[in-house]
């Protein structure tokens, strides 16, 4: 027992080391760009927790990241790299926008229109993911390449819609389609941006995924496929069917995230509607070593870094992409120190 306790401290030590290394590296980059590092970090912290509004912005970023990462855990469980996640979020947003546009002037109640919009978004994400899955199972196209291709198609599609058929009357611009009427937005807490409905969706997602992967036959079969597809097949698991299923499940959540971006955050379709949450989700999933229990806190942390960075260009004239640097460095250094740790423990 004593040695177990001992190695736990070693583990924590290495993780802290990873975080310090990431921050150190970011500091170096700040110094190179000529920005005062301390002030930059201070600004980021202010951006996160400086006011109720700032914190609600963190939550606004947290929900889609949480949902997307949770979805990705399903494809990762089946041993699949769903790089197509960005495209799936985009399709979710497009489908949702489509329904909202079609029903905007109908006499139906706003609640039903929003509900249908979200449902359509889920459908869009699931379809786009299914395509990647079909390409893999029947076309022999590796899901990484297929997903990347579908990402490109999706991002071209969204631009075409925004500049073409769905352009704002008069001006077609990067600022997206015309804003939907107030009634087609998810209701928010008073004075801040975050909607209780988004929170509910986020919580439901993470609970569903946690139990799917932990206590169900479906999750077990997916894990078996991910760890050894040949043996899983020999043990009677219908492998390609479950691989498709895992894509669809992930697509459902990606689509949900995309739809929530439309009805809950931007109230229109934007070229950058995903905010890169798909790729960020991949990073978070790796950082937490695919453990569902860690999705919520680490996604919150990442959302906070994202939002914290927004202050930087205004105050310090530093590009807000610094957040991306920190996020990337964190994953990199945590994985790296974990590698060192295993090496260290093995050689002892």
């Amino acid at each position, binding site marked *: 027992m004593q040695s177990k306790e001992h190695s736990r401290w070693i583990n924590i030590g290495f993780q802290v080391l990873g975080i310090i290394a990431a921050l150190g590296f970011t500091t170096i980059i700040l110094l190179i760009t000529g920005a005062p590092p301390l002030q930059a970090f201070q600004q980021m912290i202010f951006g996160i927790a400086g006011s109720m509004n700032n914190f609600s912005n963190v939550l606004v970023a947290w929900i889609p990241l949480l949902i997307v990462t949770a979805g990705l855990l399903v494809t990762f469980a089946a041993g699949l790299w769903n790089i197509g996640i960005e495209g799936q979020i985009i399709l979710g947003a497009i489908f949702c926008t489509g329904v909202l546009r079609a029903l905007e002037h109908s006499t139906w109640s706003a609640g039903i229109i929003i509900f249908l919009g979200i449902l359509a978004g889920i459908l869009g994400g699931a379809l786009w993911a299914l395509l990647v899955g079909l390409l893999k199972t029947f076309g022999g196209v590796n899901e990484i390449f297929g997903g990347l291709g579908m990402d490109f198609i999706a991002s071209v599609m969204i631009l075409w819609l925004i500049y073409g058929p769905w352009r704002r009357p008069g001006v077609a611009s990067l600022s997206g389609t015309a804003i939907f009427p107030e009634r087609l937005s998810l209701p928010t807490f008073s004075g801040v941006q975050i909607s209780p409905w988004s929170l509910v969706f986020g919580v439901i997602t993470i609970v569903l995924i946690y139990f799917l992967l932990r206590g169900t036959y479906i999750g*077990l079969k997916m894990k078996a496929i991910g760890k050894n597809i040949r043996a899983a097949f020999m043990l009677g698991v219908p492998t390609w069917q479950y691989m498709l299923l895992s894509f669809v499940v992930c697509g459902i959540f990606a689509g949900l995230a995309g739809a929530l971006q439309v009805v809950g955050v931007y109230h229109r379709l934007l070229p950058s509607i995903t905010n890169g949450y798909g790729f960020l989700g991949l990073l978070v999933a790796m950082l937490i070593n695919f453990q569902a229990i860690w999705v919520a806190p680490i996604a919150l942390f990442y959302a906070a870094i994202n939002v914290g960075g927004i202050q930087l260009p205004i105050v310090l004239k530093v590009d807000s992409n610094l957040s991306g640097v920190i996020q990337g460095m964190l994953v990199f250094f945590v994985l790296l120190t974990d590698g060192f740790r295993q090496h260290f423990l093995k050689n002892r």
Partner: protein
Amino acid sequence: MKVELRDIHKSFGTVYANKGLNLTFDSGKIQGILGENGAGKSTLMKILSGFYQADRGEIFLNDQKVVILTPADAMTYGIGMLHQDPLDFPPMQVLDNFMMGAKGGIFLDRSQVKRIFLRQSKEFGFDIDPDNYVDTLTVGERQQLEILRLLWLGADVLILDEPTTGISAPQKKILFSTLKILASEGKTVIFVSHKLEEVGELCDRVAVLRAGELVGEVDPPFDNEKLISLMFGKPVLKDQRKKITPGQTVLEMHDVNLEDYRLQIRHINFKVFEGEVIGLAGMEGSGQVLFLHACAGLLRPVGGEIYLKNEAMVNKTYIDYRQKGVGYLPAARMEEGLVPGLTLSEHFSLVDGNRSLFIDERQAVNTCNQRIKEYDIRGRASTKVEMLSGGNQQRAILALLYDSLSSLLLEHPTRGLDVGSSIDIWRKLKSRCAHGTAVIFISSDLEEILTYSDRILVFFSGQISKPLDVTTTTVEELGELIGGKNWESTR
């Protein structure tokens, strides 16, 4: 080179693989290491060859203490290990594979290396084309390639871990003569095995391990019974053959044609009856696997029909065959049989056919514990399968197959298992036969085929003999058929 291991300890989690082992290997000798599965043989050899590091203990080479951290370290000291599964590069050419691990500059002098390769290979009577691709070689040839490579890299101590599993009888002969040549040249040969006859035929001295400890060192002439009782701590009794009267047809092949990219089998007409055991003999790669795959729906015939209990299985998949009561036990346990990273109880949940959404964990553990007891698997419900020893993995795969199978198809059911585990596995299989399951199995061990089969099919490069009745067949007859002789008489 004289190799001395002193007080070697190694544990994996709570499992002790080596408990204070002391052994000395002299140069110019072939030293056998004998022990049942999980006795700690492989672990000890992996420590000597740098794959693992001992928790405690010392290694001396020619009375010099050395520290071996990696296989590359071991190689610089002149220790080379031939692994149970060849560690080579199937998509590469033989010659490139041969040069792997050699020290040298950036550029390769292929023609010179080729000359060395051919000369060495001739010396031992090997026949490998250096321009061939490794994946076209048989297991035996890959082993020969690996031996040549290790010697070229300067191995002075050669460790062979169960080298005779999966190679043909003539290849075994060549291997043994090679090892004797090497010993006569003053090299130290360490031969790890659980097969008594081989150890007896080859070794100058045998160390017996049991449960991670050295239980005895024996010099020739070897007494098999003594070795067995050392290995197991008690004498092992074989079961007597019981005559089973076959029942109804469970599987029928009607004019079936099979083929893969290098082999064709034409016009198979064959019936398998309830409760009988069919042994498939032949050199590896003669078509046995094609045949067995077809019986399981893993390979679709290019012509003809397969019937399971009189139902035609047209365009059916392996999953359909499974549902019809066909079980398949692949040879590669960790590649095809079990899922590393999942626990035993998760494996039983995976196959329990339960259609509900949630797994009842308590019940899963109960079922698992029951099977563990029934099949004498040394492991717990929460043990991950990769932590089990080979014999226990095999028992686990067998336990995962449903009880009420109509036919059970097995690739090398006891490959790599010791005598005790093998007898145990066959006891389980025979009790399934008594309940009506037909067993069809591939084995390269003629003794096993003759001991357990009711009828035997011999395969020779895509030809299949007529079914031979085991009671009227001798080892010599089988051996000749396997080698391609006397085929006229079997049609």
